[in-house]
């Protein structure tokens, strides 16, 4: 209930700005960090796999590739969610935004593709879609900051609104884009395809997004402001920071990455799908929280979220490959991990005090 103590905030700020300190402190900090505990669980899981029925399948090239692709498709927008969560807000619109932007892109590309050369048609559709997403994020930030509306309600309204708009776009029907194989390759293709080290394209996109987001959060002034707004918004505002701009950045980034995810999901399924992305915003919240983000704001990191998403999909894969009725156990395991992650945070905070 209590707000994070100022010193905790400072720690978070410092940890974010300088993930590695020096000497023994560094070691201790690393052992305490959320990233470390998630990695520990991941390693434990991987060590366990050779003793299960999935010993021959889990570490296969195609399974790892599949996990990586899924992690990338989730992380791309989970990173945006994390940025919003760090400011102390939440973006519930992402699942619907994925459907909406996917439909928009599919609609544009099929309409433009009829009159234009394929390459430019795809490019223009993507750019327009991303701009639309960015505008939606801008509207979120403006409503939330200028009109002082709660982020939960604003983005909840978006969740409902965008879903309904996606359904309206083509009379509830999906829009196939299989005539544009290069678009499909964006999500389904690999770099060095067929070689031992083939890398799914979404992973490359994720690397660019993650590096940029990490850089912004840890090295740029806007990053410090994002943590600062999440720790104590009033103090940040009083110290002369333009909080509106900070929120524009956060919600804009979240929606932009949601739009990117929408394009990727449409490419993945070969169609703009008005019912795609259902409840995906919750997966994004789960990945962020497992990765150490706190819904009270001020805490969270790109690396944590990446690890959180990886842990989720490694678990999904492990369950699917070992159990014969995997789907019934899924919720129990994921719920357990989520609860465990929050518990660990609470204990760590208590000890820190």
């Amino acid at each position, binding site marked *: *209930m209590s*707000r994070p103590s100022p010193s905790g905030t400072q720690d978070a700020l410092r940890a974010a700005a300088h993930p590695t300190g020096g000497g023994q402190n560094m070691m201790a900090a690393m052992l305490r960090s959320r990233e470390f505990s998630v990695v520990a669980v991941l390693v434990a899981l991987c060590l366990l796999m050779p003793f299960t029925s*999935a010993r021959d*399948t889990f570490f*296969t090239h*195609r*399974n790892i590739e*599949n996990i990586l692709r*899924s992690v990338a*498709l989730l992380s791309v927008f989970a990173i945006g969610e994390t940025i919003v969560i760090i*400011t*102390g*807000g*939440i973006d*519930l619109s992402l*699942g619907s935004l994925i459907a909406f932007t996917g439909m928009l892109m599919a609609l544009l590309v099929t309409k433009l593709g009829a009159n234009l050369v394929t390459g430019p048609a795809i490019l223009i559709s993507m750019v327009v879609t991303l701009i639309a997403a960015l505008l939606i994020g801008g509207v979120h930030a403006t409503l*939330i900051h200028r009109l*002082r*509306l*709660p*982020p*939960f309600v604003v983005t*909840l309204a978006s969740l409902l609104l965008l*879903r309904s708009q996606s*359904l309206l776009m083509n*009379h*509830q*029907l*999906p829009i*196939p884009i*299989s005539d544009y194989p290069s678009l499909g390759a964006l999500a*389904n293709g690999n770099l060095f395809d067929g070689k031992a080290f083939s890398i799914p394209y979404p992973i490359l996109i994720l690397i660019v997004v993650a590096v940029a987001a990490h850089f912004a959060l840890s090295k740029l002034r806007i990053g410090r402001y994002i943590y600062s*707004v*999440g720790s104590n*918004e*009033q103090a940040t505002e009083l110290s002369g920071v333009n909080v509106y701009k900070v929120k524009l950045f956060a919600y804009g980034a979240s929606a932009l990455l949601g739009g990117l995810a929408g394009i990727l*999901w449409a490419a*993945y*399924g*070969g*169609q703009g*799908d008005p*019912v*795609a992305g*259902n*409840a*995906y*915003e*919750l997966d994004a*919240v789960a990945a962020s929280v497992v990765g150490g983000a706190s*819904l*009270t*704001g001020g805490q969270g990191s790109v690396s944590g979220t990446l690890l959180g998403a990886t842990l989720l999909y490694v678990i999904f*894969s492990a369950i*699917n*490959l070992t159990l*014969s*009725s*995997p*789907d019934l156990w899924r919720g129990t395991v994921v719920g357990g991990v989520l609860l465990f992650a929050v518990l660990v945070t609470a204990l760590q905070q208590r000890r820190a005090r």
Partner: protein
Amino acid sequence: MREFLYYLRSVRAGSPSNPSSLLNPRSIAAVLALSAALGLASCKDKSSDTSSAPPSGGAPTAAGAPSSGGAPLASTAFDKPRKAEGDVKIKIITNGISPFWDSMGKGMDVAKNELKVDASWQGPRQPDNNAQKGVFDDAVAAGVDGIAVSPIQADAFTPVIDGAIDKGIPVICFDSDAPKSKRLVYIGTNNYEAGKRAGEGAVKLFPAGGKLVAFVGNMSAQNANDRYNGFKDAIKGHNIEFLQEPFQDDKDAGRARRNVSDAITKYGDKINGFVGLYSYNGPAIVDEVTKNNMRSKVKIVCFDGEPKTLENLKNGLVDVTVVQKPFEFGRLSTKLLFLLNRKGLKAALDEMKPELEKAGMTVKDNNIDTGVDVITPGESATKFLQQLKEKGLEST
């Protein structure tokens, strides 16, 4: 729930200058609980949206269970003409919004124009029992002359249907039945039979036997169970077996894809065939099989006619798809309710029976099984796609 009220209060009274304080740990529970509820609600949405599952969407009663055959006619009150002349107003109530219902609506339009009847259809905004009851009550209040409904929860909806019947409004069920209610007729697909037809298709595809994996939204839904059981009964004794229970995806298309990928990882070349029990499972299977260059080694059996499935059919990427007839749900429901008003229930059924039986449908007591079409690539697909085009349908 209390957490949520607490949250609302804090919104109203709270310090708007610091919205982040609204997200204190106590309200997180509310946040998650509410969004989970929304997620669930929209999940259900998907069940109908993807048309796969038009159906009972988890309704405890069997839409097409083999045994759900005709209850005795509930009431003779409807055997007399109810409205021998004048406008007849008919309402069709679906279990949600989906492309599947779009086809149904087109069928309704055909009967509407042919018979000059005032018919319209509507789905509840949320696919839950109470929202559907709201739509139903509105129709009753508007004084319609007949209602066709696809109940989301058959047992919960039974008193609602009975209430309207007692008021003298004829009610029939389509797509999904409420067998314990006083509904006059049920028009729909027998999902057990549909599964059986798909299984028979598999028997033809694997004359020497084979190993299969199945994919589905939720096995807790009656239609999924019926399809799966029908399939299993059809392949019995033909040396065809499933490698494990069906993979489930909660009607999430992304998860459906990953399940196929995981199945390929898990069983590899052991798999001879894939079975997609819900509409979107077919496209997910085709995408993943194509990606892994397995098409020449495996057979694919799926259900329903999503736009992508129709495209795959055209390109020979699926071997069998079993499609329902939502168009007929709409056309027949409208026609039956109209004739029932003009001539009474028994006369209406008697009049329609020859037409239905000629079209290969089964009429037993007051159950009309509209049947399924089994489509294979080639001539059968071309003919089927042509028929759809003539009806102006993009999916079925």
